[in-house]
């Protein structure tokens, strides 16, 4: 048993060593296009590339994660309410695969929350309560799993900010979350292959909050 484990460990380490250069280069390349993406098709292209890496690698959660992230971002451009769910289903499938490769990953819980929040857009009145609960639960878990991850704070802030007050929104509370997110982002290591999106959003939101507080 011990031998097998040792062997397996050896195998995976050689495998990852063997792949690392190519893998990292491919991720880095596609991340560069993801980080600068502004249109639906660039997100889709990057997403497809990540999905190819994921399928080829089979054991890496990161390309699945990014493929899902790209799919979610692309949904923002979707105007047809009938198409949103199908696209989110595809994104959810990718996060499920990422999750099976890397369980209890704070970043993957953030994607689950994003998917839930996007589902609300299809039918605000009918889906609001159900899916915002799902989203917040995922973000709560994301915070617990990695208290230094700024993204759960950013997402909670964004949701609290954009939701009307009668439905649980709270701009003041949102600002506190933005501040915390900005603080965590400033401590986070600079651009790596690991998830790093959201910094600009958090800083912008935080400075808007500060400006408003100062105006008062």
């Amino acid at each position, binding site marked *: 048993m011990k031998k097998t484990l040792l062997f397996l460990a050896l195998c995976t380490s050689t495998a990852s060593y063997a792949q690392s250069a190519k893998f990292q280069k491919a991720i880095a390349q596609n991340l560069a296009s993801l980080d600068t993406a502004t249109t639906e098709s660039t997100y889709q292209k990057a997403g*497809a590339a990540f999905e190819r890496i994921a399928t080829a690698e089979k054991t890496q959660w990161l390309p699945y994660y990014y493929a899902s992230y790209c799919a979610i971002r692309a949904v923002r451009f979707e105007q047809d309410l009938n198409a949103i769910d199908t696209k989110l289903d595809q994104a959810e499938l990718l996060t499920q695969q990422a999750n099976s490769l890397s369980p209890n990953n704070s970043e993957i819980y953030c994607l689950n929350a994003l998917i839930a929040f996007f589902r609300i857009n299809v039918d605000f009145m009918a889906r609001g309560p159900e899916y915002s609960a799902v989203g917040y639960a995922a973000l709560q878990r994301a915070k617990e799993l990695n208290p230094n991850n700024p993204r759960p704070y950013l997402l909670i802030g964004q949701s609290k900010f954009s939701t009307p007050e009668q439905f649980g929104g709270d701009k003041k509370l949102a600002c506190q979350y933005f501040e915390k997110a900005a603080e965590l982002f400033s401590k986070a290591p600079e651009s790596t292959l690991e998830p790093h999106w959201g910094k600009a959003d958090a800083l912008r939101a935080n400075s808007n909050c500060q400006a408003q507080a100062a105006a008062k």
Partner: protein
Amino acid sequence: MKNNLLIISTLGLITIGAGVAHGQSSITGIVTDYNAKPLANVRIALDGSYDGTVSGPDGRFSFETVEVGPRLLLSTADGFQDVIQEINIPDSTATVQCQIVFTIKALALGKVVVLAKKFENDDKNKVLTLNSTEILTTAMDGNVVSALKTLPGAQQVGESSGLFVRGGTGTESKMFMDGLLVNNFTYSTPANQASRSRFAPGLFKGAYFSSGGYSALYGQALSSALVLDSEDLPASSNADFGISPLSIEGGIQILSKDKKNLTGIFTKYTDLDLVFSLIKPNITFTNAPKYLDANFFIKRKINDKGILKLYNSIGRSNLSLAQPNTDYATLLDQVSLRNTNLYSNLTYSQGLSKGWKFYLGAGLNYNLDRFGLALRPDGTKHSVYDSLSYDKTSLVQLRTVLSKRVLNNGRLQWGAEFMRTVEGLHSDRTSLGSNQDSYGAGFVELESSITDNLSGRIGVRVENSTLLHQHKLAPRSSLNYTFSNKSQLLASYGTFYQKPEKYYLLTDNSLQFSRADHYILTYQKLDNYYTFRTELYYKKYNGLIRTLPQLSNSGYGYAQGLEVFWRDKKTLKGIDYWVSYSYLDTERNYLDYPLAAQPSFAARHTLSVVAKRFFPAQRINLSASYAFATGRPYFNPNQSTDEFMADRTINFNNLGLSICYLPKIGKSFSVIALTFSNILGNQQVFGYTYSRLDPQLRTPITPTNNPFVFLGLFMNFGVDRTNDVIDGRL
């Protein structure tokens, strides 16, 4: 095994080496569908490598690779089945041309169905559904049943509380909460009056209203099943408070820190005294209706996919009224009604691995109606006749269902239920005694796709009643064809049995099950903007209760009709509206009917229109509903037998309006609701009661209040701020 793994990792090294050492070959081509129309946004990948691309708007694609030799090219396009083709890359400088053609349309995206959220092939996909917000904003009176009356198939019957569906009586529709039967879904009423549901719409996630051909999982309802699923755990603890001239209500539900346990209570007291002193009802209440309800519930999340729910409600009501006796003009009927109701249900459902799921439920129902009748000569204080009767029902039920995902996104469900009923009718003058019945049922149902476009469901239910000494086999089946534009054609058939009403069973316990057979053809197209649905049905009744010449099961009847439902959330910006139309042709020969005739609860044409609009800036939700029904038959003893039920009441018109304002009150979610029913003051007559002694005298049956206005404030506070406080400290 060891060797294999080693080879793989070495291969990886070689490939990278190759990539560095040699140039790259390119793979180019075009993607089209079978009509040679270019397909954009198709994902193309060289299997096992990172290489690939996405096709452009003209369907063209091109990418480079270091791979050499025979390889698989995998293409994925939305709405089509994946295309896998073999290509050969001769050397590392070659340009490989290839054409990718998508031929097979994928209807249910195989991958997506795995998530099984919205594609389940069960009743919920086949029936019209309303979620709790829709029920709240549709029903002007917060009554679940009123909201359902805006859907096709339901009659606008205002003199009784039940749901009258497709030529069926109110007692032919049964309500199920989390799988368990709910007797006395609405408050008890004296004859010819309607009341509302005991259950607040907010208790439920959604209502699935099947107007026929429903699943083998449910039974003992000849016409329809209303399946209500209770809410799961809320996101946080909260408290409710509501006040209106009619009622005052309040409740609190506390969610544990780990968000896995919920305990809640809710109480409501309704008293129509104040309202009736402001808006005079058509009936003289000596004691306006008063209802007191208390609910206690526990919900508990077990593991990942399991939930335990306990719901208890206890209710009391009383009212009394005085109305002229139809037979003796100088006498006043003094009617009093006191009710005690208890309902308890405990359910546990648990999802297991490999597509297994089990459900266990137990329920307890107790209902006691105390009817008092006193006849008092007008102007005197002493009655000349008094009677008090007790109508008592108790029910204990157990239910279990096992389900397993099988075959092509299919599902097999089987289970059993058992109900022990004790029903009695006693009065201080005559007593019918009481009956005990043990009813048992077993059911099995298989749903599966047959081909890509065709799916089916087949089920059977075996029912046995010890009181009736009878067992019955009730088959149910349906076949569903999906067209390429995602519209569906559905054919269903089902046999349904129901025990006769308590009163008849107490009189003669040799009675048997009544039977209805449903044949339904449905065409529907649903998406997030529009719902179009039309149904053609034929329903055959056998073994209905007849009271003439003697009590027997010799009644029969039929109902056939056409229904259309159209809902549109897109065309008129910001407005969600729906229109239901039902055409109903029905006759039955039952009870004391001398011949087969259109019954008094059936209108030939029924139309209902609902429109809603939310104004976010003003925080106002406006909703209007209009219901129309052609006149219904009523029995006129002055007519000859040939003319039995030939008279018709005036047409029914009802325009309702509701304005909901969501004010900013602290951190609460508040609603101020102002609703008007029958705002135009149209005269509504549901039928007539004739004097037996002088058939020239008759009293119209009308709504208690017409028109009616309601104003209320409802608030919900998220009590548990601990989460935000913790987050506040961050």
